[in-house]
């Protein structure tokens, strides 16, 4: 009985408002009429991090701000701006963090060299063991 009452209360409860009640921006959930431009916009939107749901791209996020960012990207692409320049504009404001494709920097080199180093180490290890077995 008490559980049913609590369940009923939960059904009636209003969710806390963390978003405005304004409709999404015009180009937030609308494709550009020019398919090439839409493809460009999609490509960029999938590589821009949502500021609210930080693990998601703005293409995937349902956050209002992500919708506003999609609107911004589509408007600028429709106006003839290149995706690289829009990405640079966002990086200028939020840092490389905003892009899922950050530029290669010295600090990231070990990450790229690690597979190569591991492969060489593994090869040397295998070679030494094989040699020892043959010597037996």
């Amino acid at each position, binding site marked *: 009985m008490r559980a049913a009452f609590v369940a009923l209360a939960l059904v009636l409860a209003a969710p806390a408002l963390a978003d405005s009640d*304004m409709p999404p921006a015009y180009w937030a959930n609308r494709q550009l009429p020019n398919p090439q431009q839409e493809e460009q916009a999609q490509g960029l939107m999938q590589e821009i991090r949502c500021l*609210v749901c930080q693990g998601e791209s703005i293409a995937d996020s349902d956050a*209002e701000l992500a919708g*506003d960012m999609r*609107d*911004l990207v589509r408007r600028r692409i429709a106006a003839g701006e290149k995706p690289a320049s829009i990405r640079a504009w966002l990086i200028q*404001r939020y840092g490389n963090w905003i892009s899922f494709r950050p530029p290669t920097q010295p600090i990231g080199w070990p990450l790229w060299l690690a597979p190569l180093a591991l492969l060489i180490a593994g090869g040397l290890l295998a070679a030494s063991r094989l040699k020892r077995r043959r010597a037996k």
Partner: protein
Amino acid sequence: MSSWLRFAPIFLLLLIVAAMLWRLANPPDTTVHSQMIGKPVPQFALAAAVPGVAGLSSAQLADGKPKLIHFFASWCVPCIGEAPVLDQLKKQGVQIDGIAIRDRPDELAQFLARNGDPFDRIGSDPESKTQLAFGSSGVPETFLVDGRGVIRLQHIGAIEPGEVPAITAAVEQAR
């Protein structure tokens, strides 16, 4: 194979577990810091957000006086709690301009009537465009802009009463 090398995988495992435990105990900072500090305010021109109060444009900011640019909204719950602190700042002579994010004039007017209106001007930013141009990622956020129109400081989240002296000192310093 030397004996210590035999234990290398276990040491490696312990190292990885230790790194994970450290990260669990020290979660990363998820606030998004604007990279616009030290740069001139981005170009914008916003219409008035409520009738009777002037709108806001970037051209008006380089007038020789430092001011706070406050991003807020009537639908933002922490902004209600912050309102008395903004009033206190205003009383101490700090000029505050507002930018209302995704807001309606009637709802914003109601919000100001209920929570106080410390703003000299309020621009309306219905698609968060100016917010994005500032490198801001939510409401409430406050930027300090000096008399030359350069962004000097970003405060993320509501300003707590205890932070008022630091803010007024920063405003004085930007004079």
